[in-house]
């Protein structure tokens, strides 16, 4: 009796803590996860945030509305154009400005290009996180073409600041349409390659299927949005339910997958690439003529009140909430960032899995840390 007790005791497993991050290849930046692990099995994941918190919300309270736009570039830098658009839409709606159709269409095209670029990067990084390093470069190759388009038209590759309240900073570059068409043609041949290289791969499927499952009810309760939520079969595309810019003029399908596991989330993003391409194709030939910008006052003062605008970034639903007291600065500015809510579901998804599962799950959450930290 005594002997077996000591034997059991000597084989007693013990939970231990491990610090994943803030410098860790899989956390894509400075996310710190405090893992409680039993052997390889994860018992608890506790994110520790704030390593690049810049308090953008506080900075907004002292900035004018034009200046706020460029700060949003620095939140979710992979969908910077959509972030800019969100702020501009909020301001424009509050001012009740009539935005020309040309601006709306261009914003939508660039927004969808941003989404493709972000998903390309995500795809590459997803591959890298599960160990296939080559995908990274293939993803970047295609993203580079979009970045060139952005650089030619907007002047910057990442933090574009192309939107201003009232329209766009400049008109599109004369080469824009041709380049976008080239890209669409090029990219259509590359998505099947993505599928052959990674999606169909047996190892990848084994790594992702049934991993990090998030049910639809949990998805709603955790407030996740974007491809993560749609992978759980929760229809939440802001572009469908609250269409903004020119998105009410185009037809596209909301991509839904029922399984809620890592592979479903992966598939949602891959299929979204096709939808984004289709939106671009519908719009690129029909950019209406007109002004690229509506004249606004040099000092924009929003009427007193509260304004909320949601848009669909590549990561999910970005909300911009402005409380205005009628001055040239917002009284309170809140960004409801998609990554923050998505991250809150990580603990729920990762518990019970292995370290490798956590990495795969985190990869499909597509976290951008400045977006979480703001």
């Amino acid at each position, binding site marked *: 009796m005594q002997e077996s007790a000591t034997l059991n005791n000597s084989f007693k497993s013990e939970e231990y803590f491990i610090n994943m991050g803030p410098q860790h290849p899989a956390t894509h930046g400075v996310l710190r996860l405090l893992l409680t692990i039993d052997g390889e099995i994860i018992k608890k994941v506790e994110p520790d945030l704030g390593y690049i918190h810049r308090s953008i919300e506080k900075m907004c309270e002292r900035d004018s509305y034009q200046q706020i736009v460029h700060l949003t570039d620095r939140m979710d830098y992979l969908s910077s154009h959509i972030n800019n658009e969100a702020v501009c839409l909020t301001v424009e709606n509050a001012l009740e400005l009539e935005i020309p159709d040309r601006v709306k269409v261009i914003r939508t095209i660039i927004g969808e290009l941003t989404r493709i670029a972000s998903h390309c990067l995500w795809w590459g990084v997803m591959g890298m996180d599960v160990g296939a390093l080559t995908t990274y470069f293939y993803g970047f190759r295609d993203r580079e073409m979009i970045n060139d388009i952005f650089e030619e038209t907007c002047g910057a590759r990442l933090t574009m600041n192309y939107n201003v309240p009232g329209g766009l900073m400049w008109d599109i570059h004369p080469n824009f349409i041709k380049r976008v068409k080239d890209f669409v043609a090029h990219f259509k041949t590359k998505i099947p390659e993505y599928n052959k290289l990674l999606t169909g791969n047996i190892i990848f499927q084994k790594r992702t299927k049934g991993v990090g499952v998030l049910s639809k009810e949990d998805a709603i*309760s*955790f*407030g996740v*949005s974007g491809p993560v939520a749609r992978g759980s079969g929760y229809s939440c595309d802001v572009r469908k339910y609250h269409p903004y810019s020119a998105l009410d003029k185009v037809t596209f399908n909301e991509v839904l997958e029922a399984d809620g596991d890592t592979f479903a989330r992966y598939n949602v993003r891959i299929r979204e690439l096709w939808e984004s391409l289709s939106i671009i194709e519908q719009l690129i030939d029909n950019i209406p003529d007109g002004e690229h910008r509506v004249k606004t006052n040099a000092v924009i003062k929003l009427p007193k009140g509260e304004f909320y605008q949601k848009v669909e970034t590549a990561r999910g639903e970005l909300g911009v909430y402005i409380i205005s007291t009628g001055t040239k600065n917002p009284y309170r500015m809140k960004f409801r960032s998609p990554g923050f809510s998505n991250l809150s579901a990580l603990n729920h998804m990762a518990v019970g899995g292995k370290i490798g599962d956590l990495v795969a799950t985190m990869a499909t959450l597509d976290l951008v840390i400045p977006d979480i930290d703001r």
Partner: protein
Amino acid sequence: MTNEALRILISSWFPNPEFETKSEPVEVAEGAASKAIINPNLLEFTEEGSQFLNVLVKPENLHEFMNKLKTNSDTCFDYLFCLTGVDWGAELGIVYHLESTQHRHNIVVKVKTEDRENPTFDSVCDIWRTAEFHEREVFDFFGITFNNHPNLKRLFLTPEWDGFPLRKDYVDEINMVIK
């Protein structure tokens, strides 16, 4: 449901005891009626010029009201998409943006307290699990504590951080540039 229909429905949950007796025959215009039949001690509709219906709740009713919003099959606000802490100067408060994934209607619930030293509200993270992180964020930046929160500690800032940066009276002469 439209904002107006929502307003009427929610009003009916908190009937005005003084108004109740004579509410039966009154069939006046909706706006006036709903304002009248609601108990002003519990609930208040505010005009903020926004696209959503705004409700101001008393802190002590917050949890019960939120629970009702979630569980009632007509409202079914199951998606808390934004939780914002606000410093209104004299008061501290929280703004909840809710959406129903079934009916696709929205509501904004606000709660305020004048206690700036030790502001406390009930946590809603047992109703919407996303609130757990958002409430930690609010605690971090506004110093609002939440009852029954499972893990209320600073999320972004270090535990020894002094003050609550997003409050309007926060001063940091070294790091803050004021224009």
